[in-house]
């Protein structure tokens, strides 16, 4: 099994598209850092203008912690696409290339093949999140320094003291990993059904875009729909930065995400185990 996982990881590492995600994160985070270094103060003045009309705000507002938060928020839509780009291709790509039948003929069970691919996808997702964490938080703190973090909500603002931030980021990145694993599982599931690598990626992207648009629309009708959309629960990492932390909401959302992951993976596994591999 370990050998299979290594083999799958090697396959991911040997594909140029696997580096596109890392490259995209590097470019996006680099650009945001550059923009914040040159004009971050004006940007934050605009963002917090509602509050500065009433208050004199003193202290180091522009700091690495806030920049990391802004980056995470901005990448809320893009990161799943980067994950789907690789995980959506992991079974269907081999199916399209004709190597899946070859692999199925080897002395490994289909379950072993399936979970080796799944674990390799999880490792890739973890690498993406880790890279994002290093660039946004570690490099951000090196460039902009430490400091209190202002977290904006549509109905208010929370200030988190500097000593109280790092553990929150630790949990936030774990939840973000879970969220991306949900996307990986979803695209993996579609990949198990598809015979070409484009279909799972496009379906996955379309789903995320549609769900995100519904989540953004302030129409009461969608309030009934939103709890059923997995994108609603994927942004629960934000709640870690609210005061007080609503642990029940976080736990429920995490449980729902785990349920989705198990559901998608179960369907994909069952289909992969029973399907006729013709190519």
């Amino acid at each position, binding site marked *: 099994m370990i050998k299979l996982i290594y083999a799958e990881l090697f396959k991911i590492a040997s594909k140029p598209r696997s580096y596109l995600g890392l490259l995209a994160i590097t470019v996006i985070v680099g650009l945001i850092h550059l923009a914040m270094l040159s004009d971050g103060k004006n940007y934050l003045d605009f963002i917090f203008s509602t509050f500065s009309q009433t*208050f004199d705000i003193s*202290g180091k507002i522009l700091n690495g912690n806030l920049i990391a938060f802004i980056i995470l928020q901005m990448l809320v839509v893009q990161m799943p696409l980067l994950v789907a780009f690789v995980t959506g291709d992991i079974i269907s790509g081999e199916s399209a290339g004709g190597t899946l039948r070859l692999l199925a003929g080897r002395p490994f069970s289909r379950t072993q093949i399936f979970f080796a691919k799944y674990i390799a996808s999880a490792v890739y997702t973890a690498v993406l999140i880790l890279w994002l964490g290093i660039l946004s938080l570690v490099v951000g703190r090196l460039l902009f320094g430490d400091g*209190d973090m202002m977290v904006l909500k*549509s109905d*208010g603002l929370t200030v988190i003291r500097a000593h109280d931030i790092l553990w929150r980021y630790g949990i936030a990145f774990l939840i973000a990993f879970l969220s991306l694993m949900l996307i990986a599982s979803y695209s993996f599931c579609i990949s198990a059904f598809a015979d070409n690598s484009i279909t799972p990626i496009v379906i996955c992207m379309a789903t995320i875009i549609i769900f995100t648009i519904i989540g*953004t629309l302030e129409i009461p009708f969608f309030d009934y729909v939103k709890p059923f959309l997995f994108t609603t629960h994927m942004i629960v990492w934000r709640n870690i930065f609210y005061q007080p932390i609503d642990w029940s909401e976080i736990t429920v959302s995490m449980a729902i995400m785990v349920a989705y992951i198990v559901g998608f993976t179960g369907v994909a596994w069952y289909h992969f185990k029973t399907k006729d591999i013709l190519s």
Partner: protein
Amino acid sequence: MKNKYSCLLVLAGILIGQLTLQAQDAKAIVRQTFKNFAPVLDYSCKASFNFDIPGLNIDHIDGTIFYKRPNKFRVRSNGIIFLPKQNPNQILNIIADTLTFLPVWIGKQTVNNTSCDIIQLVPLKDVDIVAAKLYIDAKGYVQQAQITSKENGTANVINTFDATSKYAMPAKSVISFDMKKFKVPKMVAVDINSKSSTVKKDTGKTTGSVSIVFSAYQFNQKIADSVFTEKD
């Protein structure tokens, strides 16, 4: 008819006389207050801030306050602080500005278990502060102040003094102020997937307060101007 005009003139005379006396009394009270503070050219002190502001979730924080005449003011701290635009030193600046504000004595009232004269400061020029009411005790300490400005609405400052209070500087100030409920566009806050806001029906008007406990005052240290311009 002649008697009627005479009566009106007498009444007007009494009224003007009364107002002049009140203004003189008020001036003496304000002068006494300013006299307490007059030796202070600058000061620094430790300050502990507590916030109770609707829509703003912020923990207690400590810092150092610097003040230098006529109106240089700065808070230095390790974290972010939200202070209402009407800072406590604004009162001292108003009192010191005898050319802009006319003090009028309007009554007496007990504040913090201390009998106080109520002094209304009427602006003589077109300035941001449209009205100020000071509650000054027999020692010349400003126990309470209500300041209304065009830009920032009304702020109410309640001061507490203790045995160590020097130069009429408070040991604690609680600043209450009117504010509108914060509303940030969802796209700016990136607050997606939350419920729509059609169920919220409040007026949005509310009151916030910041309490500041002062300690370790140090006066006339010749604080450099650079302290007030240095970056956070």
